[in-house]
């Protein structure tokens, strides 16, 4: 890896690059899926290549190559420089990079059991047992899946950094779907979108207790077919930690990406309502709301030693007791404000340009509990597990649906309700937050389908969250 990196940097320098960095990547992904009692798919994907990013005349060029031979690497570096020169013909402002010390470092995800050492038949046996647990009358489709990722990367820059990292991810999950003539109801565990995933070893799967939750989840899917529709009106809303995590992702994580604020994503992912003159002044949420970007959080999918610009992992306050306090930044975007980079730049793979991506965007724990929130709610709903999500391009107008809901009356959950939706506007919503559960109910969740950038990149990001409560929210059935 080191030789490939040196060759790329040397070739970029020789071709005229004023700055260059590269990532040499060796990534292995394993996937096991069981559907309706049968092994649906067992597969492994090995992915190796390198990406070279250069600055020429103050403009960027990037090239990804699979080749590891000298001629191939030199061709890639020369093409990156040619692309940068083409960029420079129509660039608006010269790119400046916030300074970062050159380091030589290594980082490896701490794991108890490497997921790639767990025999496949043990993984399959687990999923077959989970599948059997979900096989209750009324369930028409049962899916269980396990995933593992080993991402080995060597980063080098023309400023002298040499950083080797190995990130290991492990995940698992189950879905049970029940159908009737007019309804399709799916329940998932521990989270929707296929599975819950962490930077951790096989121990993360064992802690999930997929087997112990399979029957309960399947029975809930069936019960939802005949459940009453979610009540409509303006009411108190309590979110479980998984939905709170996605709410943070969409309405805080994305709008605090500084590249969006600067218009880099205006033609695609969108911009942001959080403008720089609002920093330190804008009341994003209530006093109960503190949100951090923390790449040092244990087990998050945004946990690493250094980002893909060689900037150390760090913790940044985005919202401090309700006050808008910070952005997710890169070296390029931070330099516009003469600030150091927040270290949030990552690329999906060797052939993609590193971009500002969420690390672990965490809703910090409060002092309440789910039990207390329900007990002190006169009328409202408690919603669990995302089913539908949509938000506008400035990240204000949102509508979420969840898989299940429970109506609350006089401090008790009184009935299961189906097809709940809630909607709102981001700052009004977070300002209506009057309780967040404490550390005992705070969990780290993984989102494995965060899309951004062109060409599109799917990133794995983390969110620590706990159940939380909001007043006067518009709720209705789908």
């Amino acid at each position: 890896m080191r030789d490939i990196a040196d060759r790329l940097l040397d070739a970029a320098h020789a071709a005229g690059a004023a700055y260059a960095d590269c990532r040499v990547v060796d990534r292995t992904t394993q996937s096991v899926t069981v559907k309706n009692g049968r092994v649906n798919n067992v597969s492994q994907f090995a992915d190796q290549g390198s990406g070279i990013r250069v600055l020429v005349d103050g403009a960027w060029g990037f090239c990804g190559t699979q080749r590891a031979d000298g001629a191939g690497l030199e061709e890639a570096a020369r093409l990156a420089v040619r692309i940068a020169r083409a960029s420079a013909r129509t660039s608006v402002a010269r790119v400046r990079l916030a300074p970062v010390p050159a380091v030589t470092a290594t980082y490896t995800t701490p794991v108890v059991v490497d997921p790639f050492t767990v025999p496949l038949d043990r993984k399959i046996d687990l999923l077959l047992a989970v599948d059997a647990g979900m096989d209750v009358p009324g369930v028409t489709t049962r899916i269980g899946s396990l995933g593992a990722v080993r991402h080995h990367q060597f980063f080098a820059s023309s400023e002298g950094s040499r950083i080797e990292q190995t990130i290991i991810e492990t995940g698992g999950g189950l879905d049970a779907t029940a159908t009737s003539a007019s309804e399709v109801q799916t329940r998932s565990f521990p989270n929707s979108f296929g599975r819950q995933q962490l930077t951790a070893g096989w121990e993360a799967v064992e802690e999930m207790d997929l087997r112990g939750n399979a029957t309960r989840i399947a029975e809930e899917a069936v019960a939802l077919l005949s459940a009453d529709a979610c009540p409509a009106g303006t009411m108190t809303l309590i979110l479980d930690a998984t939905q709170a995590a996605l709410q943070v992702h969409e309405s805080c994580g994305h709008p605090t990406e500084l590249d969006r604020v600067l218009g880099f994503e205006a033609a695609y992912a969108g911009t942001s309502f959080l403008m720089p003159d609002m920093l330190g002044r804008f009341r994003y949420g209530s006093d109960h709301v503190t949100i951090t970007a923390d790449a040092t959080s244990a087990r998050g999918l945004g946990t690493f030693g250094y980002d893909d610009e060689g900037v150390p992992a760090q913790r940044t306050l985005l919202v401090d007791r309700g006050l808008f306090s910070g952005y997710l930044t890169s070296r390029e975007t931070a330099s516009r404000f003469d600030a150091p980079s927040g270290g949030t730049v990552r690329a999906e793979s060797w052939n993609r340009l590193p971009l500002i991506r969420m690390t672990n965007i965490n809703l910090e724990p409060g002092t309440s509990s789910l039990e207390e929130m329900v007990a002190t709610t006169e009328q409202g709903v408690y919603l669990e597990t995302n089913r539908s999500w949509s938000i506008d391009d400035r990240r204000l107008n949102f509508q979420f649906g969840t898989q299940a809901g429970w109506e609350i009356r006089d401090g008790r959950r009184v009935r299961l309700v189906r097809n709940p939706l809630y909607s709102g506007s981001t700052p009004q919503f977070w300002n209506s937050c009057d309780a967040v559960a404490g550390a005992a109910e705070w969990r780290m969740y993984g989102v494995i389908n965060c899309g951004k950038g062109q060409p599109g990149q799917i990133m794995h990001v983390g969110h620590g969250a706990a159940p939380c409560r909001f007043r006067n929210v518009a709720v209705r059935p789908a």
Partner: protein
Amino acid sequence: MSQLRAGEELLDIADQVVERVPAGSEAEVTVTQTTSALTRFANGGIHQNVADQALRLRLRLIRDGRCGVAEMRVAGDDVAAALVATAEAIRSHSPNGEQVPLYAPDGGADTSAGYSAATEAVTPEQRADLAATVCAVAAARGQRAFGTSETGVTAVAMVSTAGLRRSARHSTTELIAVSRSEDGSAYGARSAADAAQIDAGELAAEVTELCARNHDAQALEPGTYEVVLSPYAVAELLEYLGLVGLGALAVLEKRSFMRFGERLMSEAVTITDDVSRTELAPLPFDGEGASTLPVTIIDGGVCRAVVHDSVTAARTGVATTGHSFPQPNADGPLPRYLCLAPGDSDREAMVAACQRGLLVTRFWYVRPVHPLATIITGMTRDGTFLIDRGRVVRPVRDLRFTQSIVGALGEVRSVGAERLASRGYFGAALAPWLHLGAFTFTS
């Protein structure tokens, strides 16, 4: 970037894998080479500019009732052997059971009608020139341009022990332009297989003119309105209709709205999946090597058919239509080249016929809410205008809609005669302007 390898060369690579599989094995090898380049511009200048090339090999190996799948995007002389070793290791640990059979050759032709050498030859400088054209037109009107200029070529070869031996290539080019003023924005896009068909000046003129009219937007009360939808918005409706209900697995698992033989939409609605439309840059076969066939899905508002892979086809007792993802998979088939048949109207006639409604340029962040009822939600974006008594009277702020697609397509007032190709997440779509009688905006 090196020139894309010829089909024969990719077939040779696949042969090298097949030659290495253990005796008595069934094997299916897919070799995919992609070359892509994308120039991205924002605030009137290029800010990101990338290119990459990759060769990906996939092996599905079956023996003794066990299946293993391995994929590699790795360079080197020993890739074929490594791929076989990985697939064999997975296969040996997999349980014995019924496997998805390899697809037997169907005699389909390996056309590369969706390929253009001109697209493959586009240089970084030419992509930058397209971006510069859009930026200059916007700047001349006091606006800032954002967007992408993208080209790509994909070549695919498949070989199997069942006698499959096919290869094809296609090319894609897309120019996306967003123009922004102090308080408004507009969107436009052109895509084609052939880069020579993209007219940056014409697109920039369209987008900057729309942006100039999208000024001082006022809020509008949510409610149910008539809508005149641009082809960009219609393409989005088609894609989500396909996602929630036009694949055979959705029907088999009772997740689809389709009721064959019943009229669920207006007579003006005919939806096909048409692999013969070269502007959609089609590939002639699917992820298991089956020839992709044209399918009439909705005919005059009546549900006729869904798309199949070999698995759903076998379960249903019909032939596959060639819409498979690589097997085995849990997702089932999906349409890739959805087309809404043209009518005889146009945007101006639709606006003139609209009593009170909204002219929508583009939908954004569309997601299913209730798939069985085809209810989706999303936002309008980059140009939404109020129509009153046959005239576009003013821009309005973006609105959220929550609406059944089938319900909306049951209220068709008129369909445009001209259609525009748009790229989507799973494929591409060919869509006209559409005037709908009722569309519900919820916030």
